[in-house]
């Protein structure tokens, strides 16, 4: 079980308190109607799935309740860092 640092609680908390939320920094388009079918498909379904450094969303569901972002290595499973939702990509 991983330990995950919640950037809101500012402490390492056990993985069972968290829920994974998919790839991070995929903002919902402000005007979806303006997107082509292909762009909308890309927004909905296409993900990077990198080997190595991955930006992803987690939610401290059974804690402070907040969504936040994390950089995790998909090879080692190690968290490099976590940061609050809305902060710039790291």
């Amino acid at each position: 079980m991983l330990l995950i640092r919640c950037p809101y609680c500012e402490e390492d908390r056990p993985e069972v308190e968290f829920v994974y939320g998919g790839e991070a920094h995929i903002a919902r388009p402000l005007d979806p109607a303006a997107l082509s079918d292909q762009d909308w498909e890309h927004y909905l379904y296409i993900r990077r799935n990198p080997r190595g450094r991955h930006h992803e969303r987690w939610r401290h569901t059974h804690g402070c309740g907040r969504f936040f972002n994390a950089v995790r290595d998909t090879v080692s499973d190690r968290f490099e860092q976590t940061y609050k939702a809305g902060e710039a990509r790291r």
Partner: protein
Amino acid sequence: MSDAIAIPPLAVAGTDLALESNAVLPGGVTLTLEPPASRWSLRARTAEALGAVIGRAVPTRIGETLDGIACLGPDEWLADPPAGTVVPDGAGQPVSVVDVSARGVVIRVEGASAARVLCSGCPLDLERFAVGRATRTVFETVEVIVWREQADMFRVFVWRSFAPWLWHALKAVQLG
């Protein structure tokens, strides 16, 4: 280590688990069901904004408690104030005040080994959890709020329908 401890078989089905008013665990830890009380879930962007609306100071750091109010998240507080306290509903203000008095129950876990009893199913290091702290967490698969009021007394807030399971899961804990 376990020679003197006997656990009665849980002969009942899961559907027959029922809350009791109190219980004494083999290790001397007691469980007590607290009577109903008024509680509110409070939400606002900042502690100041919330304090201004409800007319009380609220804690500012996650995990802190102050006069019966616990800060659970950056915009979330649980108010479990003394009996008779009334929290205004904040109509029209940028806050959310929701009465959750009936949503759950509080199980008081008390005794020298109270932290170890809770550690049986809670993954937090509760031995090092400071007195006066409160947090939302889990006990096995059930979400709870753990509030350490004293070194040897924790209050465990749990939603009503999960309470019978939690009560009996705590009763089943065997201290080594």
